[in-house]
């Protein structure tokens, strides 16, 4: 087993009195891609957003159990949510670049961190764009508006923006679901490359995508973790009948 980056133990999640995650326990390996799959409303996105506490903005939520990133409980007392989110970056389903220049988008996380040094910012911006496989396409127009980029480019810009603050973990919430097949493939290749340096957790509705990019796959249903195993095992010989029904499309 690879080194564990995120440990989840008996994690429950409530919206008000509605329990949407039931006793989730799993270990997410370091520098691997872990895919979360399952039908809509199965809780996979809620779980993903629990890791960097993005759910905190929703009023009336409550959690139980533990999520440890590098052995530190993210819901523990004395945890600084802001610094947690700098270590655990996130990319969303809908690309959401700020209405600023390409440069300012990528530099944003560093600027709010207090980095002022122009040279360091320049370096970080081009390094992040390069890692997100976007540098070649935009290096001549860093001051152009980010909104002028294509959908696929915008999503890679959002990835670059998340990478700029140098997180260890990258959470991706259906990052390619709004993109065409070519742009999707670029994102998938990117995910595959990024796992050398980052621990990636990706939510996807697209099972083939999970099969292609991930090393481990977790299948969620009705707020429960049904099966969690090597992606190859899940897709070739899952041990739970429900998983098999889902991935073979016999769901009903």
């Amino acid at each position, binding site marked *: 087993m690879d080194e564990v980056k995120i440990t989840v133990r008996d994690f429950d999640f409530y919206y008000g009195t509605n329990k949407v995650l039931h006793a989730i326990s799993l270990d997410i390996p370091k520098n691997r891609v872990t895919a979360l799959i399952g039908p809509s409303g199965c809780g996979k996105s809620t779980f993903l957003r629990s890791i*960097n506490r*993005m759910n905190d*903005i929703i*009023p009336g939520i409550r959690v139980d159990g533990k999520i440890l990133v590098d052995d530190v409980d993210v819901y523990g007392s004395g945890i600084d949510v*802001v*610094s947690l*989110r*700098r270590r655990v*970056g*996130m990319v*969303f389903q*809908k690309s*959401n*670049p*700020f*209405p*600023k*220049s390409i440069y300012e988008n990528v530099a*944003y*996380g560093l*600027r*709010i*961190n207090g980095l002022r040094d122009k040279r360091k910012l320049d370096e970080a911006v081009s390094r992040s764009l390069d890692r997100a496989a976007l540098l070649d396409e935009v290096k001549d127009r860093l001051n*152009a*508006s*980010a*909104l*002028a980029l294509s959908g696929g480019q915008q999503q890679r810009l*959002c990835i670059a*923006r*998340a990478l700029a*603050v140098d997180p260890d973990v990258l959470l991706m919430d259906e990052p390619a679901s709004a993109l065409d097949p070519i742009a999707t493939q670029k994102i998938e290749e990117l995910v595959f490359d990024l796992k050398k340096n980052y621990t990636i957790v990706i939510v996807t509705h697209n099972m083939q995508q999970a099969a292609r990019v991930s090393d481990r796959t977790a299948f969620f249903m009705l707020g429960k973790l049904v099966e969690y195993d090597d992606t190859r095992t899940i897709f070739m010989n899952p041990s739970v009948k429900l998983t098999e029904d889902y991935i073979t499309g016999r769901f009903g």
Partner: protein
Amino acid sequence: MRKFKSNLIVALCGASVLLALVPLAMILFYVISRGFSALNWAFFTQTPKPVGEAGGGMGNAIVGTLILIVIAGVIAIPVGVLSGVHLAEFKGTRFSSMVRFAADVLNGVPSIVIGIFAYAIIVLPLKRFSAIAGGFALAIIVIPVVARTTEELLRLVPGGLKEAALALGATRAKAMFSVILPAALPGILTGILVALARVAGETAPLLFTAFNNRFFSTNVTQPIGSLTVQVFTYALSPYDDWIRQAWAGALVLVTMILILSIIARVATRRLERMARG
């Protein structure tokens, strides 16, 4: 038959539009035709002449109106925008729904009442009319408009931007002021300019706050002339020359408001284009 009905309704709509446009066209026609003849260089540079003397102008009132607008803006923009930010950010709380209701009520309060209010809390304690009091009264009219415009426009900013900022480690305040507010800025700016243009045409709240001043003054603690009050005074006078000047004043006022509105549009479009690239 159905076609006939449809045509009838289209025709009715067209007629209504015409009906609405006629007064506007007539106002513009009257103001321009009557006002233009009284316009000359002296009108812009000179102050009013004593009764009986011909000539003079409204230079002091033009500057006065500008000063009043600036004072109103300086007070109302920060207060209005920050209130709007609060309303948008804490939209579900009881406090914010109270504030929202209060703003809507304030928006409907007759401007003369606001004038009395400013008179009571500024003019009476200081024992004199002043530009500050006038600007304050105008600001009170502007604040609810700016606050509600800001709130609505902030709500139109896609939630994804806030999430993205928070996910990058921004605090709520940082996300608001570095991402969400700038994204809504073009619209907010329009709202501010339109609101200021509206109060530039207010007379009632100025009557017993800024009062009037026949002389050229930039001292904000002194009474100050304004185009609206000057036009009001002159239009009611029995002197032909003053009445002609009142028309000219009206023309200048309408032009100023028009220019402000145009600036609002152009600036908005330019800002939006800058954001979109």
